[in-house]
């Protein structure tokens, strides 16, 4: 294992210290239990957004705490859901009296821990709503699986619903908006290499030099198909096709196209994927009206990409364009 770390057990704590030192204007960091909140929390009268998940996906979620996005983020161990005590304390710290929205990615652990935290917060008199993100078309959605994973769409949901909360929308309106985003967005990812969890020390899966994994999640869990390496154009087609067909996105639709790096893939390659994705979408009469390109929801050092499409309307466009000031995403301010 080659990593810029000290003790593998200290990775998350030391990262949090770094965040605390770098962004005192944006966030406050708490330890044991670990969570990050907006520096000006609680914002009175505003719906508060709390998310969280395993670490290793930076900048998500801690890098999205700040004005116009999340009020709090709960980092778990690398690739491991945080625990209810973190979520409860974060929820209490950011509740400004207008209720708290939990944004939960659909993984068995995250769902169970957030469910327990929401129950505890309600027992303490805080109004809590939870919304699930499950946008990964690589997973068959049936009663026979844990359901689709929450992946790239999470970033877009946190930005859009964060803007709505900032605008003063109610808890119910924010929750409905989040569910609408989830209903209108789809993602699919692929990996060129595996990744290594620091405290495990070995790659999460073995991927031979000449092969790639299609339908990868964000935790180094293997995907659905393993095939020989293909060109960027071919890979882009393999990702766009199932995403477009699943919703389906149709001729005349306006979309936000999000091309994400899994951590190890550089921007130069993301732009090649973006170019082909726009061409494929235009050929289908789908218009890209907004975009996001870069490493926003990563899987440690994994090389690979994911593509997310979100069907847009005027409301979503305005919310997307609204000011945001976080460590990981910043515009309009």
């Amino acid at each position, binding site marked *: 294992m080659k990593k810029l770390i000290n003790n593998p057990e200290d990775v998350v704590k030391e990262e949090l210290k770094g965040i605390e030192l770098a962004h005192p204007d944006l966030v406050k960091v708490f330890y044991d239990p670990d969570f990050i909140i907006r520096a000006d929390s609680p914002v009175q009268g505003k719906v508060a957004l709390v998310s969280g998940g395993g670490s290793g996906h930076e900048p998500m979620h801690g890098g999205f705490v700040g004005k116009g996005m999340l009020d709090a983020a709960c980092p778990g*161990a690398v690739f491991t859901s945080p625990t209810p*005590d973190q979520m409860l304390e974060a929820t209490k710290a950011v509740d400004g009296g207008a209720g708290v929205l939990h944004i939960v990615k659909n993984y068995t652990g995250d769902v169970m821990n957030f469910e327990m935290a929401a129950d505890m917060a309600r027992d303490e008199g805080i109004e809590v709503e939870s919304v699930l993100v499950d946008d990964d078309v690589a997973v068959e959605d049936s009663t026979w699986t844990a359901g689709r994973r929450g992946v790239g769409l999470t970033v877009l949901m946190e930005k859009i619903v964060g803007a709505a909360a900032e605008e003063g929308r109610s808890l119910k309106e924010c929750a409905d908006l989040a569910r609408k985003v989830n209903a209108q967005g789809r993602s699919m990812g692929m990996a060129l290499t595996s990744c290594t969890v620091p405290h*495990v020390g070995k790659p999460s899966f073995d991927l031979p030099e000449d092969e790639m994994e299609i339908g990868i999640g964000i935790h*180094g*869990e293997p995907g659905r198909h393993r095939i020989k390496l293909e060109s960027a154009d071919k890979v882009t087609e393999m990702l766009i096709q199932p995403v477009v067909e699943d919703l389906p996105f149709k001729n005349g639709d306006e979309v936000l196209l999000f091309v994400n790096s899994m951590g190890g893939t550089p921007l130069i390659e993301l732009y090649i994927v973006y170019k082909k994705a726009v061409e494929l979408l235009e050929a289908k009469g789908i218009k890209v009206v907004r975009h996001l390109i870069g490493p926003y929801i990563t899987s440690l050092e994994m090389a690979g990409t994911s593509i997310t499409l979100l069907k847009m309307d005027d409301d979503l466009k305005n919310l997307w364009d609204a000011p945001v000031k976080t460590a990981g995403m910043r515009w309009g301010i």
Partner: protein
Amino acid sequence: MAITRDDVLNWVRDYAQVIEDNHEMLTDLDREIGDADHGANMRRGFRAVLEKLPAVEDKDIGAILKNVGMTLLSKVGGAAGPLYSTLFIKAGTTIGAKTEMELTDWAKALEAATVGIANLGKALPNDKTMLDSLYPALSALNSAIENGASNGEALQKSADAAYEGMLATIPLVAHKGRASYLGERSAGHQDPGATSTYLLIKSAAETWSDS
């Protein structure tokens, strides 16, 4: 003979050592069909349990097991955190304020734990989860008690059944948890949760064999 508070404490300590010895094996199983963290998470949880155990050593069995459960809830994370936490909290609640328990108390505790886990995880038998070790362990324990087996024999039968249940997860296709994302590719691998659960039941059988 009864199972004493000291027996229960020894079981928890023994299992913490079992996890310490087997965490790499559990993580390796999880690497094949999950996200390669089960052993690491359980080890973090049971190290914390050991640290907190001295503070509750003189409490009743129910309080000790609930304390173990609360520690796991805040230290393990993932799905294993809430699930193992539920196991210990439900067992502790069922046994209650006793400093000694009969094997029938343990059977009731194991049943409550199993029901709690099934409710939280919403898994069914043969979904390739920890329940596939727990259900056989529970029914073997109950039949051994009905047939008048000694504590040691009944606990061993329970552990043997958990072992068979664990092995029976190998050909199964996972329907819950991260392994379910693999679809058919999850078949041919032993479930890590069923494995850590078998080790828990086995540890009880070994620690309590003379009770």
